């Protein structure tokens, strides 16, 4: 690789008289990436910061003469009890989802390791099918599953003897809608987590398990003393990814409930969008989304630490 790089490149460096010239080729090759990232990613982010420091409503959007107001938007957002209710709800929502995702995915991965060839193929096929389901298709189907009069979930609950679920309107109740959203997100997230954990688990040397079993260790003990410690970095990595994905989950919530009923399912990204879209306070919406980015950066730093650790262990 080094050899190749130090070879003078004919067509891009036309025979320079001096031998030790810095090669231009790599920088030409990454220039398109740098330029587009600057315009399409860095600039919007900077613009978001700027908007969050301005008074920016519908008039300013139309006329384009927004004035800077310092940190006024942040003060307003942070002193609003509703914002803190949204933050609490987001943390709660994230905690429930991530715990469920990690526990269930670990169980599914452990199950996959123990299955015979055919059953494993079947379960993995089912997981891939779930994974392939587009978010929008899944949200639409879940609305149909939990439909009040003809939904199959209500039919099944009534058939099992829960008469109170006849024509029950799930989406009119805050907690029920919250529960459906958790179910939906967990259902969608398990395939990635379970298949990744499974892929990691089969790298653990089989002899370790055999030795442990010879010593009479039970399933829980084998998991807590061998599987988990060996794959600690992988578990950390996937947990961080799931935290990030759940915190910023927007589409599922927006399509199913728009944050309602009331504010029962309004998490940070939904709140930022509501403030900007319905109230046309782009400044406050930008401030909320910057605070969300801050929260995500914390999760991201943890993720990169895990990534680094994994890289070193691998």
């Amino acid at each position, binding site marked *: *690789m080094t050899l*190749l*790089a130090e070879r003078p490149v*004919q*067509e891009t460096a036309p025979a320079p008289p001096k031998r030790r010239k810095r*090669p231009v*080729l*790599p*920088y030409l*090759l*990454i220039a*398109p*990436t740098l330029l*587009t990232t600057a315009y*399409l*990613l860095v600039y*919007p*982010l900077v*613009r*978001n910061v700027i908007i969050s420091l301005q008074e920016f409503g519908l008039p300013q*959007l139309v006329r384009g003469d927004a004035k800077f107001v310092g940190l006024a938007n942040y003060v307003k957002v942070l002193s609003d009890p509703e914002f803190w209710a949204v933050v609490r709800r987001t943390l709660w929502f994230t905690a429930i989802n991530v715990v469920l995702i990690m526990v269930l995915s670990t169980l*599914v991965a452990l*199950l996959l390791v123990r*299955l015979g060839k055919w059953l494993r193929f079947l*379960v993995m096929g*089912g*997981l*891939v099918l*779930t*994974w*392939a*389901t*587009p978010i*929008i*298709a899944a949200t*639409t189907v879940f609305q*149909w*599953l939990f439909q009040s009069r*003809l939904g*199959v979930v209500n*039919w099944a609950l009534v058939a099992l003897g829960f008469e109170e679920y006849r024509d029950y309107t799930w989406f009119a109740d805050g907690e029920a809608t919250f529960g459906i959203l958790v179910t939906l997100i967990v259902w969608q997230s398990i*395939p990635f987590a379970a*298949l990744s954990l499974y892929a990691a688990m089969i790298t653990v040397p089989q002899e370790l398990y055999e030795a442990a079993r010879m010593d009479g260790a039970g399933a829980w003990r084998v998991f807590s003393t061998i599987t988990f410690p060996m794959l600690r970095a992988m578990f950390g*990595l996937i947990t961080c990814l799931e935290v*990030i994905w759940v915190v910023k989950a*927007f*589409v599922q919530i*927006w399509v199913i409930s728009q944050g309602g009923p009331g504010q029962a399912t309004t998490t940070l*990204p939904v709140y*930022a*969008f509501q403030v900007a879209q319905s109230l046309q306070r*782009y400044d406050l*919406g930008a401030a909320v*989304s*910057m605070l969300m980015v801050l929260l*995500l950066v914390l999760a991201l730093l943890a*993720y990169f630490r895990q*990534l680094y650790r*994994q*890289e070193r262990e691998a």
Partner: protein
Amino acid sequence: MIGRISRTTAALVVFVLSVFPVYWMVLTAFKPTKDIQSATPTFLPVPITFDHFGTAIAAKGFFSFWRNSLLVAGGAVLLALLVALLAAFAIARLQWKGRRAFVLMVFVAQMTPWEALLIPIYVIARDTGMLDTLWILTLVYFMMTLPFTIVTLRGFLAAIPADLEEAALVDGCTREQAFRKIVFPLLAPGLLATSLFGFITAWNEFAFANVLIIKDQDDRTLPVWLSSFNNTFGTDWGATMAASTLFMLPVLLIFIVLQGRVTTGIVGGAVKG
């Protein structure tokens, strides 16, 4: 023996739970309306009807939404491939100052919380006159898929031994010829896998399509149209499920094509970089 039975039961439960929503979607799409509306649902696909697919396809604008989605996702993926291939080559094959920093930037870009950029991108699109055009969506999707494309292509490139290229250079090929004749054919499967995966991301995207295309309803993409099925089909669940099935079909086909490579690709991309 008991362990075996309980494992099999658990496997079947996991299978049914993961497959049921999709099965129910497809089943409803093929069910006659009177069966959909009956008090006791049927769980087997008899009898079958294609009426709901007819209703979905006949819905106003169906083909233009389909075309818009294809255009936007296809355009974004092609752009991303082109730009990413150059960058991936620079990372995988050349030594230069700032390489590590660039790789780190790509990783950070991959984790961008796009949901937080809805507002500024809406404002920028409005300022530049790109609001309500497919261009802005193409650009956003291009940027969304670019980091992933670079990371994955870099992985595929690194898997091709540099010796092959060096041999070609020794034999008198220019670097460009060596890439075109030696590396590119070996890279083609990787390019296909990567682009199909980027395609899925763009095909499924909802939040930006929902915000950036407002006035001209004919310029909407399939996800936005599907999410507003209540306005399109009322309470016709058969047609709604038929539309969802049609929307999911290309994604499912891609997953089948990429079977196996998908898992290793993503996990490998996320971990190995």
